[in-house]
């Protein structure tokens, strides 16, 4: 019974899913043990939550780029929306909900919802079109969000929220608090994000994405990607199907952003610029389009690499770039890919052979 269950977990259909979950859970357990025994350096500790955030955003982007086949160049914009929503929600609720865990979860959900709503709004016109229009529009979206938040002043006191644009005209009552201060962004945020919630968020993201792509809607999404005309001919609504993937991608970025925003006491709107969007896209492309395990691994490695190379001083960004190129070449090498495939096959065969005997 148990054996059956385990072998089912590792069969063709569920293998990738199981490996992803196991990878995250094992990494979490190891890091928890290291942190409780004091074996974890401050450097690694400070990287735990950001790695979780970027991983969730990258998983979302991979759903959009890898499975839906639509290029999104504004994932950082959605993260930004989620981050500042999360910070504002957490700041407003600070006095009424004292439990930080509950507040964090509410902030993450709020961030995800607002980002999803934004995704829906820009998805309506764009996803009806054929071609790479989504890339252009999301690129613009990221810029618009950045300059909107750069000019937004938002304060909170006992009379409620006060907002002004471009110039700071917000005057607050006693005990009031500025949530957003234009180009300064959010300062004095309570840092309530935890690594455990980050890992749970990754597992949630994986569950959502895997359940989606192995469902009927998921097959429709891939059908639209591979042949739009064929998909339309069998009655699939292409725009709606792509919208589903896009909204889920945006909401995952929003949730990741909320967690990210609540991990730092200060956050400037300029953090989520075009470069951050590209960074997330690099994680996805290096991890492999449609490969969630790869995305998790590549995000972790590429986040850790520049920090671990600090001892090389001036040369560290140079070497980072070279490593990036080398990984690109190696992972896309046909020769190595066939070797790896053969190795995998022989491993599976060996297992089956052992079982039969």
């Amino acid at each position, binding site marked *: 019974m148990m054996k059956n269950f385990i072998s089912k977990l590792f069969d063709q259909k569920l293998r990738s899913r199981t490996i992803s979950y196991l990878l995250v859970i094992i990494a979490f357990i190891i890091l928890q043990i290291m942190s409780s025994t004091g074996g974890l350096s401050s450097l690694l500790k400070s*990287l735990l939550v950001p790695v979780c955030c970027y991983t969730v955003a990258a998983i979302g982007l991979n759903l959009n780029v890898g499975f839906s086949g639509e290029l999104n160049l504004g994932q950082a914009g959605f993260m930004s929306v989620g981050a500042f929503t999360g910070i504002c929600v957490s700041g407003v609720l600070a006095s009424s909900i004292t439990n930080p865990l509950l507040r964090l979860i509410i902030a993450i959900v709020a961030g995800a919802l607002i980002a999803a709503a934004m995704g829906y709004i820009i998805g309506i016109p764009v996803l009806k079109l054929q071609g790479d229009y989504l890339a252009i529009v999301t690129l613009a979206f990221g810029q618009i969000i950045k300059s909107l938040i750069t000019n937004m002043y938002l304060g909170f006191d006992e009379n409620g929220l006060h907002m002004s644009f*471009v110039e700071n005209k917000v005057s607050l009552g006693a005990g*009031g608090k500025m949530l957003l201060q*234009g180009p300064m962004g959010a*300062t*004095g945020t309570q840092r309530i994000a935890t690594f455990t919630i980050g890992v749970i968020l990754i597992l949630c993201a994986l569950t959502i994405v895997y359940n989606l792509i192995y469902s009927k809607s998921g097959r429709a999404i891939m059908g639209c990607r591979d042949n739009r005309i064929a998909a339309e001919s069998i009655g699939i609504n292409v725009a709606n199907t792509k919208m589903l993937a896009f909204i889920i991608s945006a909401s995952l970025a929003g949730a990741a952003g909320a967690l990210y925003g609540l991990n730092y006491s200060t956050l400037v709107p300029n953090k989520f610029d075009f470069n951050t969007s590209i960074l997330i896209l690099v994680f996805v492309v290096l991890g492999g389009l449609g490969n969630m395990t790869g995305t998790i691994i590549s995000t972790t490695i590429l986040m850790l690499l520049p*920090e671990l190379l600090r001892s090389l001083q001036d040369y560290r960004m*140079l070497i980072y770039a070279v490593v990036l190129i080398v990984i690109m070449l190696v992972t*896309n*090498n046909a020769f190595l890919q066939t070797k790896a495939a053969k190795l995998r096959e022989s491993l599976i065969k060996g297992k089956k052979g052992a079982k039969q005997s």
Partner: protein
Amino acid sequence: MVDEKTCMYCVEKVIGSFYNERNFTFCNQKLEMRVEMNYRNLLKGGLAAAMAFTMAACGSNSGSASGSTDSQSSGDAGKTAFKLGGSGPLTGGAAVYGTAVYNALKIAVDEVNAAGDVQFELDFQDDAHDPEKAVTAYGVLKDNGMQMSVLTVTSSPGAAVAPLYDEDNIFAITPSGSSLAVIYADASNKTGSYGNCFQMCFTDPNQGSASAIYLKDHADLGTKIAVIFKSDDNYSSGINDTFQAEAKEIGLDIVYTGSFTEDSSTDFSVQLTQAKDAGADLVFLPIYYDPASLILTQANGMGYAPTFFGCDGLDGLLTLEGFDTALAEGVYMLTPFSADAPDDRTQNFVKKYKDLYGETPNQFAADAYDCVYAIAQALKNGNATPDMSTDELTDILVKQFTSMTYDGVTGESMTWAETGEVTKAPMAVVIKDGVYVGAE
């Protein structure tokens, strides 16, 4: 030692040899990248690159090991020297500021170590002016056993790491992080100061009120004042707010206030014409030197010659490429540091900086130089020893900083409030014959 140029050459060669054929297709909405590689070339190029890097790495190690300030040369020195940490932008857009601070820190630490009373070991990390990177840089510093710190060079990274310094109770003084958020947990209400985070520079609001008071005291510069500020920049609008408030209080005559944003920072003819029509004979520019250079050029073009007065953001006007420095003649600047001050300390610092790095130190460098000396003075007066715990050291340093007076290159008899704000006399400099000269 192999320089970066050689390295870049090797990298180019490697990459060039990889690509015999490169397809980057974007058809059928799938991102595909096919690369055909020539293995012999790959091996050759790879070896060359590997060799270059090994040599470069060795070179950089041996090159910097001669200086006592290298972050790598830790070892057994931990018992005899204080570990002084800090981070700043050594790469990226704000690298000018980070490099200036790092250079000045190296000079100051070498001097203090040579004097013998207090020994420092400097560990300065790159944060690329990014709060996220600053937090990881803080992790690195902590792992390396930092005992006290010069916090960060720029404001928003400083605001991100200040709560961490507070949590771990490590003393920190920033040379140039001028935002209130660096020393207050709740900057908008000016409450909840960290207590262990100090500033060597003026806060942004202080510059505004100090400018207003200076202009009141020096009515000969001009009495009808126009202000042109950048509304979407925190530094500029922060100074403008307090300048206006202070001006109202002490009765300065502000005849015109104009603003611009990042997108409209190329044409100032409207603001200048309005200022001229309002009869302003002094224009206050609480902005950075880039737009200021354009304002000076355009005012000159339309024959408008009021006195221009700015804050420390104008520092850098003279080194701007493609700017006719003759236009900057007679520009006043409120800054705590002037490189031509006649006292020995300033002259010694400026000379050393020029000899080592080939340029005149700016205000950021001077503030950083003072940070090291102020910490050294506090440690010496408090009889601190490097084997003390960080808690003990922080206690001593906070007690010393809030009670001592310090004379440095950026001002005489500075004192610090318990909130971490510095009190020092603002100094005005004026540009004469292409150099800064102390006004007064």
